């Protein structure tokens, strides 16, 4: 691996981390769309900054563009506050306008500006190592590495300092306000960090990848954990993993690095969406099926409890009487036997004492919804997990 290859992966990984942190809070605040808006509407800020500084990595340009990002948020909220349109409509109104202003500014000055819309949207990670930062003639590494590195340091410092405030105001804005932690300050702080990260990263990876890196890893992590710190950690891991594997994927396909990383992020999310243990589609479908079986089981046990007559408890009779198909009846019988709830003697089914207690408790629970006594049954039966 050459040093340029290493540097590209390092830059991509740092961008991934810098995006995952604000991204986690955007996802939890259900504001994913806002990052899309910011990523587009920073364009006029970048263009104006570029006119002034002639350098895509200049701090002034980053600041100007980040301010455009925050202005976007303010405009969206202002339009939304009029009560005439919903938030997504407001977003859809604001960012295309700002983005077009940027496009027109570039087109008008095409001759003397080395800046094009493609570069802003898609970036060019492969070229990032060639733009070096020289300090008194000494090469200290790629410029974008420094830019994103500094932004990341700031983000991490803010995260550590204000973790408690971010968590509180994300979970319960009202309480935050009543305790004196102004939700507005925290909100605009988060918006500023998101804007600065987007601007700092676009030169290396492009605005589209920034959006993907902010949202996909956090959305995936959200499906896997119930702990905010773990969610942050997982989004960082997912981001870095996609960044590095995306790089090698692009290398192998000889394709765009940003495109490959974005594709991998999509695949990663899809895989987690399908296979996540609790919230994943497959787990949910499995749970629903289990619950259906358990309801059948309960119906069946209740039937046994209510009917002492031998004729009512014959295996064949059950098929007809409860009106189940063979497969369903067999699944239910097997489940009941496995749990020692029934015994079958000469094709006559009877409840065991365990089955008897279970039925009473379960019915009791369904009627009263008091779940203290069935706490230990939750592990075995989905039915009781709410």
């Amino acid at each position, binding site marked *: 691996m050459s040093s340029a290859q290493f540097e590209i992966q390092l830059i991509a990984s740092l961008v991934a981390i810098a995006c995952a942190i604000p991204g986690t809070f955007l996802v939890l605040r259900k504001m994913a769309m806002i990052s899309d808006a910011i990523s587009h509407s920073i364009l006029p800020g970048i263009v104006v900054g570029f006119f002034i500084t002639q350098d895509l990595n200049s701090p002034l340009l980053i600041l100007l563009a980040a301010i455009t990002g925050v202005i976007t948020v303010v405009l969206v909220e202002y339009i939304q506050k009029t009560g005439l349109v919903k938030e997504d409509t407001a977003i859809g109104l604001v960012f295309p306008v700002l983005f077009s202003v940027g496009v027109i500014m570039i087109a008008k000055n095409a001759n003397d500006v080395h800046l094009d819309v493609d570069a802003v949207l898609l970036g060019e990670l492969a070229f990032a190592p060639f733009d070096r930062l020289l300090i008194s003639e000494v090469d200290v590494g790629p410029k974008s590495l420094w830019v994103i590195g500094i932004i990341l340091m700031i983000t991490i410092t803010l995260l550590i300092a204000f973790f408690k405030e971010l968590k509180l105001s994300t979970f319960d804005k009202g309480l935050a306000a009543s305790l004196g932690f102004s939700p507005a300050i925290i909100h605009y702080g988060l918006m500023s960090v998101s804007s600065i990260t987007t601007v700092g990263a676009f030169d290396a990876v492009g605005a589209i990848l920034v959006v993907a890196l902010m949202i996909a890893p956090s959305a995936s992590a959200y499906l896997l954990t119930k*702990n905010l710190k773990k969610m942050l950690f997982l989004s960082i891991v997912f981001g870095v993993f996609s960044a590095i594997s995306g790089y090698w994927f692009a290398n192998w396909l000889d394709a765009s690095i940003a495109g490959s990383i974005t594709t991998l992020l999509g695949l990663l999310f899809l895989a987690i969406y399908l296979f996540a243990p609790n919230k994943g589609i497959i787990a949910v479908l499995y749970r629903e099926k289990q619950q259906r079986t358990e309801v059948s089981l309960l119906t069946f046990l209740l039937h046994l409890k209510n009917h002492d007559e031998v004729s009512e408890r014959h295996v064949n009779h059950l098929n007809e009487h409860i009106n189940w198909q063979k497969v369903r009846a067999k699944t239910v019988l097997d489940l009941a036997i496995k749990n020692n709830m029934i015994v079958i003697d000469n094709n006559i089914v009877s409840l065991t004492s365990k089955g008897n207690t279970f039925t009473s408790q379960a019915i009791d629970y369904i009627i009263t919804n008091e779940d203290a006594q069935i706490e230990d049954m939750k592990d075995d039966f989905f039915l009781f997990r709410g």
Partner: protein
Amino acid sequence: MNNKIAVQVDDLTVAYNYKPVLWDIDLEIPEGVLMAIVGPNGAGKSTLIKSILGILNPIAGSVSIYGKSYKKQRSLVAYVPQKGSVDWDFPTTALDVVMMGTYGSLGWIKRPRQKEKKATLEALEKVGMLPFKNRQISQLSGGQQQRIFLARALVQDAAIYFMDEPFQGVDATTEIAIINILKELRKVGKTVVVVHHDLQTVPEYFDWVTFLNVKKIATGPVKDIFNDDNLTKTYGINYKVSIQE
């Protein structure tokens, strides 16, 4: 009860998008009362509490807590929001939510330590939720979530408690457990203000009541003003509740 005024609201008008939902409210809440705020859905009960707590900015009027502005008296006030106002799928545990009650006294940046943890566990114990402390909050029942919110207010150790529908969606056992805690708070001299929907239980639970429907209809001791006349004025329909003396 003495004659001190815990909360004073003067000429308060609050609007969303320039449409007033509270008109010219004057209200005095004496120290040490257990007060119900009653009124139909959309009457502005939550809005009133939020305005007192500085969460919303009124377009006119003022609020004082023991004679000073809310900003100066934050530490004296605890708040239980309406349960539906937060996302219960948020990745956090019961313990952590209750711990949020300590953030106010900590201030910016500082983290909760042993002392805060201890207060949190005590509050969980008091509402009977200690066994559930590590549960993710989405896996709590509605009544348990309500208890968690109550514990979070208790941990604030305030002088005045504002609670927005703490009985919403709880069963009889939880309701009794909650009201006993509220009565205990009153016994030690705290002021408790509760948005309440079940008119039948007002005389049994509360000693003070405020009728609200965009305007303040009446406020005072339950035994003096909790009558059909005020109920009808507030709810707009001919209301009859029997009050046992």
